[in-house]
């Protein structure tokens, strides 16, 4: 889709003629509706491996979509879908999802691991993943309440080198054991 909102208002008066002839381009909200079949209504996911997009940082979404499209970030399906949209569409969808209300999830969490993760994140992750992962800043995604199985899948993509970790994040991650990383992910998934 190349057209945006400009120009269609002119046609509104002639509407009675034909629905097709004078259709306006879809709004950001409307393009985003199609994503809900996988990510849930308004981006609140109920599927354990599917990431929630609701209240995600706008820049993090745009960034993710651009990287999916270029192949910089590995994906199963997002790269193929991203090719059907323009940068303007990414911006529109990111704006829509970032404005949705926080989607709190009830997950099966190991409380001891979450506790250990809470302690570890202070020193290792909190500089970027702000407010217990509740706040997404710029390209840093919100992780609070994100589905644990999804976080684990993404972490293993980082560790295999297929997904590129931000350098400063990699410096922290390399000093942590798999067990500690697991604890950190339990923590973020548990934050409501």
């Amino acid at each position, binding site marked *: *889709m190349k057209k945006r909102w400009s120009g*269609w208002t002119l*046609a*509104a008066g002639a*509407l009675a003629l034909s*629905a*097709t*002839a*004078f*259709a*306006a*381009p*879809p*709004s950001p909200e*409307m*393009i985003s*509706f*199609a*994503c*809900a*079949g*996988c*990510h*849930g*209504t308004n981006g609140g*996911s*109920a*599927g*354990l*491996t*599917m990431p929630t997009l609701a209240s995600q940082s706008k820049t993090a979404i745009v960034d993710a979509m651009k990287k999916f499209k270029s192949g910089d970030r590995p994906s*199963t*399906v997002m790269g*193929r*879908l991203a*090719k*059907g*949209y323009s940068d303007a569409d990414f911006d529109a969808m990111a704006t829509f999802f970032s404005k949705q209300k926080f989607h709190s999830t009830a997950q099966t969490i190991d409380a001891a691991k979450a506790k250990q993760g809470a302690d570890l994140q202070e020193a290792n992750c909190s500089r970027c993943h702000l407010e217990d992962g509740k706040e997404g800043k710029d390209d840093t995604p919100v992780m609070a309440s994100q589905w644990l*199985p999804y976080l684990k*899948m993404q972490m293993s993509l980082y560790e295999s080198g297929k997904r590129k970790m931000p350098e400063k994040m990699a410096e922290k991650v390399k000093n942590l054991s798999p067990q500690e990383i697991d604890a950190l992910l339990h923590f973020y998934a548990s934050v409501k």
Partner: protein
Amino acid sequence: MTLDRRNFIKLMGGASTLALAGCATEGPAVGSSTAIMPKGGARRVVVVGGGYGGTIAAKYLRMLDQSIEVVLIEKNRQFVSCPFSNFYIAGITQDLNAQTIGYDKLAANHGIKMLYAEVTAIDPAAKKVVTTEGTLDFDRCIVSPGIDFRTEEIEGYNSRTAEAFPHAWKAGAQSTLLRNQMQSMADGGTVVISMPLTPYRCPPGPYERACLIAHYLKKHKPKSKLILLDANPDVVSKKPLFTKAWSTYYKDNFQYVGGKKVTQVNVSGKSVSVEGIEDFKGDVINLIPPQRAANIMVQSGLVGDDKKWCPVDAVSFESTKHKGVHIIGDATALPSDGPPMPKSGYSANSQAKFCAINVVNLMNSKPTVEFSGINVCYSAIDDHQSVSIAQVFALANGKIKSSATAISPADFSLAKDEHAYGESWLKNILTEMST
């Protein structure tokens, strides 16, 4: 054919004199002319069919404009999803619970009025829908009724054939029937799947079913084999992926044969015939007949000249046969530039949203909006690997056109991850439909 007044009365069948409640299962359903749910001051949209398209249309109508009253009419109390029913048929899952939804939460969350009844006629001129429970008025109607079968094209097919040779192309009792037949088949037996020419519901569905049944036989009945008779000359969906799966995992017990259109059945002889020339015998026969829009669309004069599918406008999804009636999902023939949107649950979901947007806009005298939507279909190739097709569609010059279409890599390097994502897709799309 348009529905004239006389035919319309005939369809209603003088049912008002009969006590009807709950007898919709025997013979053709009979409509009741008793007026029900009188329309108050509010404008009303009646949505027919609570499946992949109808639930979403009803929900998004209410999300977009609370001032419009929405009545959702569905003949069953619960909806059983076809997606993932192949797992159940092939014994990988043990029941249909994970893919069965009800309507209570959807109705309560969005203020949708549910009517459990079978629609027997849609009268666009009078703006009325006739159901087994009575007749009600609408300002606009959205119909997402799915498919029925062109069994008349198969010689010898009668009302009992689907018991003997289940299609399992509507999920529920039919899925159980096919599953049970396979489980009670002796090892060494032959399973035959017969699939129709395109277009039919879910292009990759029969090929996925072939993979999963072959998987079942390999594991539980190793001396048995499976034959897929495809009416199409060649595999019509995700061909590189399915042919790779068949040659990698199932080459010893599975055979694909293209260009075999079944035209005759012989139930007592346990065989199907291609043009009366070639017979195929099977201990279990899964006969998927050719399809068309659901019966109600034929009865209401909403199918096109082909007598099969319903032509609609590509923006508003309004029927080109009758104003005021919008049609989405499997039943439609959409104006398309290039390969059309497949008849899938995901397509129906995407279409429902833009249909709802444009019905609301038309009712509020606002300009209509161009379509933008997605189709993704996950197909399992065994019990832990899946592949997919992903497509984005948008309106271009009055037609729906794909701006991106691609399938999974053929080395199956992502197939385990996609299997996990596929499960979440089902969970999310059914949650979207039921809450």
